């Protein structure tokens, strides 16, 4: 369990984290979202005691990080920035970390094996690719078998197997009752990984809710309908006051203002045959962009100039 | 148009790219997928004339890269975001490139606006975040207004707005009739971006086909059906010989049938439908199914092409030693 209470961090005149309060609960994966510069990394660093808060506090199982004895046994962290000495081998990097916590040497081999770095364990990390560096960071986070994991952009540089592997690993760890706190810029990855979301913008909390609720709250729901009796269906839907917004290239209709069961029942009552009846789940990305637009708190970012065609369906 | 013919690259005894044949056509976004160490970067480097093929060839509009008269006007590439002198401003970095290729200063301003770096154009790029570096790399790629663009992992370091932006940018470039060739490890991102896929594993081309065909071929699809009269409907579907699997969430998965067939059946029987959805595997699942053999040893695999000797790796392992070697090779050749 991670608790953040009224946390503030100022760098000179800029407020990176602005009276932020939230809790990260065990047993689920909590995604931590926000644009660049929103204060995600700073918040993580404050939780981990690397930076001192200007005011407020962050607790790991009720204690400030700096008061933890053998912290790596409580919290495993992967930070976005590199945190290894390039001249040291992967094995020795993990070995000294293990020694600080009284973790035995064979756990080092165990985590190296787990992340697939055994073959290069003796090599200096200078020559590691981004993905290998990331795996070493994940190995370090898992070293003390912690109940809490804090990961900043963990899939950065991983290949498809690596992406899938870390997702499955995090899910297994959450199912095991551990607390998982993951930041990411990849909405489509978060959508299939996280159970709960904490969204910040300009250092302030924007949303703290389950993924499903987040998507429902910040997007319109629609139903995709395919039917050989399109015209009859359109007029029947219009009677009910539903909006049949568009015909997609292959004759599919998008119905808003209704639900799939309501449409199915209408069709059966009118003797209309349906060839498809699919609730359209808005994507997490759509919902996130909608929140971004609504709050206006985010992003004074330069508008994309060439983005005329929005290809999303 | 990019065309590879029996393209081969050998590092000592190891075949990084093994007789690869593929074509990247204009007017669409072609995704280039493969596990680490599969030969993606090597292939891209050979396309750009940075590495020499051991045998075979790869051409840009019919000509090898090194024979292009004005390469930046034909091909723009983003390979490594940090291949920029950190002490130079973004503007000057682009100006140097423009001058070297006889491009007018106005193009520099155009691409800086395009990628949204106007406000930091005069700042030294050493202080750029990964995302800004990525945008600068994209600006450099687009400087010559090329007909072909190649991006290696373009969303690396971008935030959600940036990711959406580059996805739309690539689609817009393709819609303008350009050839867009993009590699990525993010299947969920590729699924939304690419129209066509080239998949490479252990140096061999495993697939070169439209996205929809690729998913259809490498996936199991079924129809999810919900209905208030589900038991009745399920019996009638089963009697047609379709496999019906009951699910926890009051739905059934129906195999061997098309949604339209089920809809027709329900219509005829006047049964209510609450959902009728064709569910296909994700690109990720399809990709994993295809490349499983080329990343790790599978006991019992009988396909020699999919379980070659060197592929036995520990754990969930991607072939790390190859990856490592690639990293070394890259360092030396820069």
């Amino acid at each position, binding site marked *: 369990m991670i608790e953040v209470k009224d946390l503030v961090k100022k760098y000179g005149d800029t407020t990176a984290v602005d009276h932020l309060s939230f809790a990260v609960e065990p047993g689920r994966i909590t995604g931590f979202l926000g644009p660049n510069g929103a204060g995600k990394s700073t918040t993580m*660093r404050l939780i*981990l*005691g*690397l*930076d*001192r808060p200007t005011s407020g506090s962050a607790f790991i199982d009720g204690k400030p*990080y*700096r*008061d*933890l*004895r*053998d*912290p*790596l*046994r409580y*919290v495993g*962290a992967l*930070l976005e*920035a*590199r*945190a*290894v*000495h*390039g*001249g*040291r*081998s992967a094995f*020795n*990097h993990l*070995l*000294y*970390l293990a*020694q*600080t*916590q*009284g*973790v*035995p040497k*064979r*756990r080092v081999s*165990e*985590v190296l*094996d*787990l992340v697939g770095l055994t073959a290069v364990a003796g090599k200096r990390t200078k020559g590691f690719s981004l993905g290998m560096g990331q795996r070493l960071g994940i190995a*370090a986070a*898992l070293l*003390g*078998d912690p109940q809490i994991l804090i990961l900043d952009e963990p899939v950065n540089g991983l290949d498809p197997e690596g992406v899938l*592997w870390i997702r*499955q*690993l995090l899910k*297994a*760890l959450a199912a*095991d009752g551990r607390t998982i706190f993951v930041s990411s810029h990849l909405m489509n990855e978060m959508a299939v990984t996280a159970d709960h979301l904490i969204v910040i913008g300009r250092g302030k909390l924007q949303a703290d809710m389950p993924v499903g609720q987040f998507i429902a709250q910040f997007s319109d729901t629609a139903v995709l309908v395919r039917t050989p009796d399109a015209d009859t269906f359109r007029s029947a839907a219009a009677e009910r006051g539903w909006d049949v917004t568009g015909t997609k290239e292959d004759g599919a209709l998008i119905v808003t203002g209704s639900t799939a069961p309501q449409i199915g029942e209408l069709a059966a009552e009118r003797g209309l045959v349906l060839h498809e009846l699919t609730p359209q789940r808005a994507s997490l990305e759509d919902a996130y962009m909608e929140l971004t637009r609504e709050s206006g708190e985010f992003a004074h970012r330069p508008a994309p100039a060439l983005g005329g065609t929005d290809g999303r369906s | 148009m990019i065309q590879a013919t029996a393209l081969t690259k050998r590092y000592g005894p190891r075949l990084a790219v093994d007789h690869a044949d593929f074509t990247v056509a204009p007017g669409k976004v072609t995704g280039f997928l493969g596990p680490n160490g599969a030969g993606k970067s090597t292939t891209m480097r050979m396309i750009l004339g940075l590495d020499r093929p051991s045998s075979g060839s790869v051409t840009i509009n019919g000509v090898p890269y090194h024979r292009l008269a004005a390469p930046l006007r034909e091909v723009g590439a983003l390979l490594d975001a940090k291949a920029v002198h950190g002490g130079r401003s973004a503007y000057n970095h682009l100006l140097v490139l423009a001058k070297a290729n006889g491009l007018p200063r106005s193009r520099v301003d155009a691409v800086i606006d395009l990628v949204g770096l106007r406000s930091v154009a005069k700042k030294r790029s050493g202080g750029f975040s990964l995302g800004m570096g990525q945008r600068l790399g994209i600006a450099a790629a687009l400087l010559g207004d090329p007909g072909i663009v190649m991006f290696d992992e373009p969303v690396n370091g971008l935030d959600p707005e940036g990711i959406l932006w580059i996805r739309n940018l690539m689609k817009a470039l393709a819609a303008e009739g350009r050839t867009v060739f993009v590699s990525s490890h993010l299947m969920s991102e590729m699924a939304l971006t690419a129209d066509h896929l080239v998949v490479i594993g252990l140096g061999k081309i495993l697939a070169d086909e439209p996205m929809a065909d690729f998913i259809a071929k490498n996936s199991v699809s079924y129809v999810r059906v919900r209905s208030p009269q589900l038991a009745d409907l399920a019996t009638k579907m089963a009697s047609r010989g379709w496999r019906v699997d009951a699910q926890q969430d009051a739905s059934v998965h129906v195999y061997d049938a098309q949604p339209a067939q089920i809809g027709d059946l329900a219509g005829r029987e006047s049964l209510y439908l609450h959902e009728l959805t064709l569910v296909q595997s994700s690109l990720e699942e399809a990709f994993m199914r295809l490349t499983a053999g080329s990343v790790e040893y599978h006991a019992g695999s009988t396909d020699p092409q999919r379980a070659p000797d060197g592929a036995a790796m520990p*754990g*969930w392992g991607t072939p790390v030693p190859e990856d490592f070697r690639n990293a070394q090779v890259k360092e030396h050749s820069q």
Partner: protein
Amino acid sequence: MAARDSVLTPAAVDAAGTGHAHFGRLLLAEWTKIRSVRSTYWSLIALVIAFLFFSWLFPYLTVANWKQATPEQQANLIEDPIGSIMSSGLFVGQLAVAVLGVMVTASEYGTGMIRSTLLASPHRVRMLAAKSLVFTLLIGAIGEVIAFAGFYIGRLTFKSLLTVNLDSSNVRQVFGVGLYLGMLGLFALVIGALLRHVAGAITGIVALLLVISNLIQLIPGRVGKYLYTYEPTNAGFAIIGKRLPDNFLISSWEGYGVFAAWTALLWALAAYLLVRRDA
């Protein structure tokens, strides 16, 4: 997936117990850090070779050119042969120690390692103490070994000219090499922790050792003598001298005490800042 199971049931971690020697673990970890990078070996090899080579070279040149030496030079040498052996090796060898000491702390910031270090040991002062102790003892021990080796090399080289023996009046000069180098290593480590920048810290400490420590002799009068005497590295270097220069106002041990006091003061400042500053 077998790999996943092993993270959920890591027998290895539980088996560790909680152990009590907490500071001992940090010492062990810092020792691992120091011995697992090549720069340590290069610096130490440079120290040993430079020290032993110059312990031979100066006596050799002295013997070879004895006839050309002025009577004053001859008298100085006969009075304090050990000081001349030790100081010539030390003058060059100390640079390797200064560089390595800076690297031990400052390179953690340069590489980002400091984040890993502080995540593992959030009690930052304890971490700095462990690092300081391990490094000081390592350099001190190596310093003593090369001091006595250098002494015997020098003695052999001088043999045809004069006999050099260790006795209670001069053993401090040999033993002082390890004391000086250990303290200098710690001093450099602290400078690295304060400046957090390898190149800057190395430039600073080398300038102090080679330039500033000598330049301040040129300041005239009492002020100059005070500055010269209490400049930390000059004060520390006195531990290997027999007859100290006229403008050096205190004794050898007092000088070493001044060096130690400087180091302790800066160490306390470094510890304070380490706790206060963002990593």
